[in-house]
C-alpha cells in the first residue's frame, strides 16, 4: 500500500457502522409493515420515502460521498440530471395512450385486457 493513499485513508472518520446498519434494518421493517396499514399514501411514503432515506444513509455513511472531492458529487449529480431529462422526455409518450392526432392501440388494449383479467380474478 502506498504511503500517500494510506495517509489519505487514515484521515477518514469511521462512524459507528453497526448503529447505522441497525437504523437501516428498522427502516426496512417499517417499509415492509407500511402496506399492512391499508392507507395508500402511507404505504407509498413508507415504501419510496424510506427507500430514499436508506439510499442516502448508505451513500453518506458507507460510501462516504460527502467526504469525497467535489468531482464525485458533480459526476453523480450530472448522471442523475441526465436521467431526469430522459424520464421527462420519454414519459409523455409512454404514459399517455392518446394525443390530438395519435392513439396507442396496443397500450389501450393491454390495459383493457388486464382490467378484464382483474375483474375475473375478483
Amino acid at each position, binding site marked *: *500500500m*502506498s504511503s*500517500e*493513499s*494510506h495517509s*489519505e*485513508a*487514515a484521515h*477518514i472518520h*469511521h462512524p459507528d*457502522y*453497526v448503529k*447505522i*446498519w441497525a437504523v*437501516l*434494518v428498522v427502516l*426496512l421493517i417499517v*417499509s*415492509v409493515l*407500511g*402496506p399492512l396499514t391499508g392507507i395508500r399514501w402511507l*404505504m*407509498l411514503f413508507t*415504501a*419510496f420515502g*424510506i*427507500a430514499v432515506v*436508506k*439510499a442516502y444513509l*448508505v*451513500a453518506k*455513511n*458507507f*460510501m462516504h460521498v460527502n467526504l*469525497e*472531492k467535489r*468531482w*464525485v458529487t458533480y*459526476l*453523480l449529480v*450530472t*448522471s*442523475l440530471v*441526465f*436521467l431526469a431529462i*430522459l*424520464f421527462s422526455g*420519454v*414519459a409523455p409518450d*409512454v*404514459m*399517455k*395512450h392518446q394525443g390530438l392526432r395519435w392513439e396507442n392501440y396496443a*397500450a389501450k388494449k*393491454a*390495459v383493457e385486457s*388486464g*382490467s378484464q*383479467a*382483474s375483474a375475473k380474478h375478483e
Partner: protein
Amino acid sequence: MSGRSIANLRSVTGIPTARLVTWWIIASEIFIFGGLLASYIMHRLAHPEWAIAAANTNTKAGALNTFVLLTSSLFAVLAHKAADAGDGPKAAKFLRLTSLGGAMFLIVKGFEWTHEIKEGFVLSSGGFWSFYYTVAGLHGLHVLAGLVIMLIIASDATKNRDLPRVQCVGLYWHFVDIIWIFLFPLLYIAK
C-alpha cells in the same frame, strides 16, 4: 511497494485513479439501472393492470434479500475500516463475509425464481414480468460479479497487498445495495 498498485498512486483530481474509475463505473451504472427503473416507473403508472402481476411477487423473499444485502454492505464497510487501519487479514475476513451475503442473496433469488417460473410467470408472461426478470436478473449479475471480485481482492488483502482496492470494491457493492433498495419497493411493495 508493489508495482501492481500503480492505479492507487496516480491522482490527477486528488482522488486515487482506482477509486475515480470506480466512481465512473458507478456513474455509468446509474444510467443503466436508472434507465431501466425510469422505464419501469413510466409503464407501471400507465398500466394499472401491472399491479395484478406484481401481486404475485414474494414480499418475504424480497425483504429477506434486502436484509442480506444491507448486512453484507455493513461487512463491506467494516472491511474498508480494517484496510484503512492496515489490517489486511481482517479486511479479507470481512470481504469474504460480504461475498457470503452475496451468495445468500443469489440462493434466495434462485428459490424465488424457481417458484415463480413453476407458477407459469416467465419472461414472456407480460410487461411486468419482462421488467421483473430483466432488472432483477441484471442486478443479480452485478451481485455475482461483485462476489467474485471481492474474493479475488480478499486473497490479496490477506497478504496485505493492494489494500486501497478494498474500498473500491466496497463502493461498488454499496451501489449494488442502493439499486436493490429501490428495486424492493418497486417490485415487491407497490402492489
